[in-house]
């Protein structure tokens, strides 16, 4: 761990506009306080970069007896997580302290980043799709490959896409945990009233051809209301964009000016402003859907149980509509990473916990009770999940759709503020009818600059 030396500026602290004489007068008051205050802050001495694989000889390590886990309990899963911990402690004797470190992924990430170098670092931390890379370039998390090999974790049984989301430079930096995808939800009653088949539209073109009938069946309301929030719109837009062969970036090369990316932007713009087959929700797209204001929407698989509970009508689910280039679906949600600055004993215990909750039985237990994806292939087909599918066939759609997922473009998930800039661009397209070329060009510049300053020097 780098020593966090105080910059020289701390010594001059009391000088805030004071004279030399009065500084002497203050010296007595300050006592040891100035010395106390002289710690903290980054060092400019090192060269930076991600933490190297430590090369720990795991065989010689004994696991610690107690670890800490920072979670936001995705999908209101606190009791489920507590049960997983209970089972783990019963099996291994290792205690796990579960900490509510925030209301959402961002809050957990803020706290984890701010905790660097303090004695408050957890052993395990939630690492969502847009945050784990930041942890990595900060040197805050441990690559899991070595310790996974030592523990004999069957990484091959994890859903390949979900596990490889955490891959960079030949290492994996987290294990998938509460993972979700966007899903097409529709109001079966309204679909029937519109004389449409009881299924999700196969393609966006098909959806557009259905839209007028759906609008008519629902008092002229635009049939699909989508959310435009940060961390959301640039995620579901992957489906439209990839479906048309576009992408935000290819590795570190921005492709926001690629004709297919621009075409996807224009396609979205056209659906909202010309065809009026899609609208931006005025407030909460899920509420619009469950209240029957909109006939269908795109929402996270994690919202499944909430939607089924709130809706007064029969809820249907289906794959996201395809584009000309075929089906395309992004994944999201959170994984769990191991903190780099803890002792190998702590890290080993943390890895054992990840191994445990990744066991097919535990994975299935978590999925069945939250609606998140079973991250292990064997769990997805196991008996427990079969029982879930039988009860809620809608859930099956979500799992089946995993076959069409792919790893996200780095411009969104790896560049600080990348998602923010893309969201702003999509908001311009959706809310202000700005041409895609113009909106994406601005985002492209901003992301390029952020990459240059906040990522490139650390690679």
């Amino acid at each position: 761990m780098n020593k966090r030396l105080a910059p020289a500026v701390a010594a001059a602290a009391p000088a805030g506009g004071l004279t030399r004489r009065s500084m002497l007068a203050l010296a007595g008051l300050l006592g040891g306080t100035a010395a106390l205050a002289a710690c903290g802050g980054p060092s400019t001495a090192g060269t930076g970069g991600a933490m190297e694989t430590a090369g720990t000889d795991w065989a010689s390590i004994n696991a610690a007896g107690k670890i800490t886990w920072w979670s936001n309990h995705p999908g209101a899963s606190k009791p489920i997580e507590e049960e997983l911990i209970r089972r783990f402690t019963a099996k291994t004797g290792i205690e796990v302290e579960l900490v509510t470190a925030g209301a959402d992924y961002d809050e957990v990430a803020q706290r984890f980043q701010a905790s660097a170098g303090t004695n408050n670092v957890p052993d395990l931390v939630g690492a969502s799709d847009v945050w784990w890379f930041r942890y990595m370039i900060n040197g805050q998390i441990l690559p899991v490959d070595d310790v996974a090999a030592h523990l004999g974790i069957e990484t091959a049984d994890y859903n390949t896409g979900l596990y490889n989301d955490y891959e960079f430079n030949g290492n994996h930096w987290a294990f998938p945990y509460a993972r979700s995808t966007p899903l097409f939800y529709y109001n079966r009653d309204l679909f029937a009233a519109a004389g449409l088949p009881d299924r999700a539209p196969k393609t966006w073109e098909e959806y557009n051809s259905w839209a007028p009938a759906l609008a008519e069946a629902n008092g002229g309301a635009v049939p699909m209301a989508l959310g435009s929030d940060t961390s959301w719109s640039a995620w579901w837009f992957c489906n439209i964009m990839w479906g048309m062969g576009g992408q935000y970036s290819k590795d570190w090369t921005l492709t926001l000016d690629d004709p297919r990316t621009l075409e996807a932007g224009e396609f979205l713009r056209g659906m909202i402003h010309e065809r009026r087959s899609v609208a931006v929700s005025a407030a909460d797209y899920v509420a619009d859907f469950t209240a029957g204001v909109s006939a269908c929407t795109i929402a996270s698989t994690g919202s499944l149980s909430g939607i089924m509970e709130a809706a007064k009508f029969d809820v249907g689910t289906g794959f996201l509509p395809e584009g000309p280039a075929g089906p395309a679906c992004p994944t999201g949600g959170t994984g769990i990473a191991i903190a780099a600055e803890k002792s190998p004993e702590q890290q080993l215990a943390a890895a054992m916990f990840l191994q445990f909750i990744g066991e097919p039985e535990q994975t299935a237990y978590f999925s069945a009770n939250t609606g998140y994806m079973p991250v292990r292939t064997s769990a997805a087909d196991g008996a427990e999940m079969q029982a879930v599918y039988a009860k809620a066939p809608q859930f099956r759609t979500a799992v089946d759709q995993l076959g069409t997922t792919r790893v996200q473009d780095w411009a969104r998930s790896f560049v600080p503020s990348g998602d923010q800039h893309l969201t702003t661009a999509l908001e311009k397209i959706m809310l202000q009818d700005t041409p895609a070329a113009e909106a994406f060009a601005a985002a492209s510049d901003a992301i390029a600059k952020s990459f240059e300053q906040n990522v490139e020097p650390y690679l």
Partner: protein
Amino acid sequence: MSNAVRPALTARRPGGPGTRRRPAGYAALAAAVAVMILPLVWMMLASFKEPDEIYTVPIQWLPAGWDLSNYAAALERVPFGAFFANSLLVTVIGAGLKILLGLTTAYALVFLDVPFKKVFFAVVIFALLVPQQIVIIPNYTLVAELGWLNTYQGIILPGLASAFGTFLFRQHFLSLPQSVMEAAVLDGAGHLRRLFQFVVPMSAPTIAAVALVSVVNEWNEYLWPLLVVDRAEMMTLPVGLTLLQNNDGVTNWGVLMAGTVLITVPVLALFFVLQRRIVSGLTAGAVTG
């Protein structure tokens, strides 16, 4: 003093200000009160509603039933009791010490004769202008280094210094009639007695004003406790409240509004009980100087 605090007692001369345009005055008063109170009523009503009563078009004004299930859900999901105790402790200690620090500092600045007093006063004034946000990252690092994350001192200490209070108290002390202080000196009173037996009683209105602002700020502080606390059992109410906002799911406004009621009602009740004192303290101060 009495004519300002209870102007109603002064003779109502016809033609005096305020006697004309009574109906318009009442209409304006009613409008102001309505604007202030209706959102709070709406919050109360929503806290009794089920999701399908909230998400309906047209709007449903009254809840179907008055059961407390949303409150139960809010209390079950997050430890409101701990939030409340933490908020109370942080507010009482934080605001109390802050007022004390302000009083003693202002007293020293006004009544003690030492060189460079102006410099110290400048330190106070200048501190008033430093936005909290500029110091938040370094302060976070410091508090973390001290191992004070998730502790009361970590929440309270960085914001404890009194700049605003010191400044107001100093201005007030300067306006105190010197005769009183001279009497106190003749009385043989030491500095501490002078402060607490002579100066403080004469400063009740200013103290009330500073206390109101300090208590309100401590109780409602959000950004700092959000950063230094990550354990639910150490969270204050505003930070804990946001835990009720769901992610990756449907926001249950009924539960969220129940939580909002739980955090607003105690402070509203306290204010209603104390408001006469606070408000008359403030307004009386205008007259007694």
